[in-house]
């Protein structure tokens, strides 16, 4: 049970650190609330869509900035707008701020500045991706553990009564950490 608690604690600490460091904001919490039994992996789905989108846009922008003939700042601005929209929908605060900074440089048509911003943006994006993926791994791990425990309890009913209390506690901790209880049939 210690392991479970540790895992839970790590999950809670991790998600609060994300908030504290400003990597994600309130919107992310809202998204977490939308997870229920009908869409248990909602946040992960949204996040993967976001990662795909982000990578594509960053690539496009990199290509656009490489052009020797003349940089198409309009296209860059469109990409930034998209990225800003996506990042604010998902609640990625630092990515969003980086987009805002990027926009001012592209508005001023400053190629050097844009390149620097793009670098910053990629850095933020990788940071976000890493953190979120870790978070998902932890949450998935804890859920698997929970499922195992429940199955174990069910299978071993006649053994010493496995404290339902513990299961109940585990449920509580998972919910408190912002996760959702997977249905076990």
């Amino acid at each position, binding site marked *: 049970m210690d392991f479970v608690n540790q895992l839970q604690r790590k999950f809670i600490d991790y998600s609060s650190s994300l908030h504290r460091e400003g990597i994600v904001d309130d919107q992310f919490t809202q998204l977490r609330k939308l997870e229920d039994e*009908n869409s248990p992996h909602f946040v992960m789905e*949204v996040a993967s869509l976001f990662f795909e989108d982000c990578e594509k846009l960053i690539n496009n922008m990199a290509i656009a900035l490489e052009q020797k003939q003349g940089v198409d700042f309009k296209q860059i601005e469109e990409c930034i*707008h998209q990225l800003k*929209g996506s990042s*604010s*929908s998902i609640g990625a605060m*630092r990515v969003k*701020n980086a987009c*805002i900074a990027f926009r*001012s440089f592209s508005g001023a048509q400053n190629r050097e500045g844009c390149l620097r911003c793009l670098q910053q943006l990629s850095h933020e994006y990788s940071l976000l991706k890493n953190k979120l993926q870790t978070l998902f791994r932890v949450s998935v791990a804890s859920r698997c553990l929970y499922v195992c425990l429940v199955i174990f309890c069910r299978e071993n009913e006649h053994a010493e009564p496995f404290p339902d209390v513990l299961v109940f506690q585990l449920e509580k901790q998972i919910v408190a950490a912002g996760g959702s209880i997977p249905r076990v049939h």
Partner: protein
Amino acid sequence: MDSCNCIEPQWPPDDLLMKYQYISDFFIALAYFSIPLELIYFVKKSAVFPYRWVLVQFGAFIVLCGATHLINLWTFTMHTRTVAMVMTTAKVFTAVVSCATALMLVHIIPDLLSVKTRELFLKNKAAELDREMGLIRTQEETGRHSRMLTHEIRSTLDRHTILKTTLVELGRTLALEECALWMPTRTGLELQLSYTLRQQNPVGYTVPIHLPVINQVFSSSHAVKISPKCPVARIRPAGKYMPGEVVAVRVPLLHLSNFQINDWPELSTKRYALMVLMLPSDSARQWHVHELELVEVVADQVAVALSHAAILEESMRARDLLMEQNVALDLARREAETAIRARNDFLAVMNHEMRTPMHAIIALSSLLQETELTPEQRLMVETILKSSNLLSTLINDVLDLSRLEDGSLQLDLGTFNLFAVFREVLNLIKPIASVKKLHVSLNLAPDLPEYAIGDEKRLMQTILNVVGNAVKFSKEGSISITAFVAKSELLRDSRTPEFFPVPSDNHFYLRVQVKDSGVGISPQDIPKLFTKFAQTQSTATRNSGGSGLGLAICKRFVNLMEGHIWIESEGLGKGCTAIFMVKLGIPERLNEPKLPFMPKVPTNHGPTAFPGLKVLVMDENGVSRMVTKGLLVHLGCDVTMVSSSEECLRVVSHEHKVVFMDVCVPGMDGYEVAIRINEKFTKRHERPIIVALTGNTDKVTKENCMRVGMDGIILKPVSLDKMRSVLSDLLEHRVLFEAI
């Protein structure tokens, strides 16, 4: 003698006397016989002869007399007894008839005589009537002439034409030699020859106005005969010319102010012109009365026509002036409108353009702060951050003020915790105050309600500004903030006579007094405090920065909250007190303030608040689309997603109750889609509710959304609670219009 029955005449027949008698008798008989013949002949000829009986009688008398004389012819010689008998019979008859006639004539002759008198009388009458006819005809003639002249005079409104026509027509009608008009000069002391009939361009003869002959003419309303020798009649330069009779008449010149109803003009007018008319010298004509009358009538008509012309000139001049003024005003109005439009455009652009770089600067500097920096670099970055925050505040202030003046700012009313606002202000101000070693105390009255309805953000801004000023301008001492509910006797302050607050059951007036012991303000500066950009120039304040807008903005906020703000100070160095009163609402239920913003409590807190509600989401951005879908699915809706406007128009049907569309993507025209959806669904109950999702809710976006017929606008990012409350509001009322 023999015994023949002859009668001897008395006289011998051969006597000469006998002969004469014989001839006379013969002629008498002839005459007597011819007289009735003549009578008959002439009476037959005449149509009227009333006395036929008399005629017969007279005729008989005459015939018998003739017969007598005729028979007398035979008695001059020897005649028989028969003749004598006949003679006697005739004489007897004659005697009878003549006596009868004589008797009758006694009656007849007076009658005949009176006929004669009547005839004479009738002849006289006829002559008199003839005379009168002549008079009437002349009068009619005159009337016709004057009507014609009047017509000619009044057919034009041009002054010169009027006068010229008058002279010409008069000259023609009366066959005048010369006709002239003398007008008074501007000074009124002379008469100047202005118009003549024969001479084309009269040279400017002038005559002094106070000549006796002129006075005589002016004092009478009739045409007056004047001597040809007087100066006004000497128009022709030639000396040998001897004019005929001259007549002068006055022409009243009426001023507009002289017109009164039922008041004959001669009572009130003062200026006259003189019209002089001369008959030809070679004819022996004289001025007749009817001609003089004609002249008088014409003079009056001319007066009226001239005043009409004057009125017309005046009104034309006024109209021209008005038109000029109109044009100038129009131009000024258009210029003002252009200026206002330019200013609004400028503001609309600046609103966006100024904030974007500011965000960039602030974002970048804060990002920079997170990186590894040397202490000097850190200091520099902090300075940059502080300055840019200040600048951002300044920009917000300026834009706010413009919006305030524009009238487009509206308060965001909501229930909030009043105590918390004061505590927050205190927390914000305490660090600065402690640095300056100022003691800040907050005193909230016990009857102050904890929760109130009002614009929390702006109230805090106001209090912060006022307290901040107190701190800024105090070098030492203490600051005390007092807040209480203003009672009715305190509501009317003698210092603010134009402020009449009316307390009611739902509202109360919050009164806040901030007293400081700082530099104070001199009385003449107090009125300038609330005007924007004005700052007192004392040395202490020169370094304190700020744009001078703070108090102006506060005043406008306070005014929006139906309150009043003023500052009292006893003078320089004696500190000052800032007092303001604002109207706040009293929340109805005690548990309501615990809930967030929307005053309506959503009926269903559960996740399936809107089971089966068909919703269409249009968003180009995949991630946002998915997030919005997730929100709506969580609330139980049946969501269809589209990523382009064509797809949206294809898919939308009357089954979809709500359409969410993202309008902040440039290039994709969400407004166009809204218009097309409006066109597609003509009946209002079939049309889905259209809600815009956007990143900024400035006035332009809101106006655009309202213009194309959208029902609501939500600021992204959307939280679950917000979406839930928005949907319940929309479905209840079908209109939302703005959820932040």
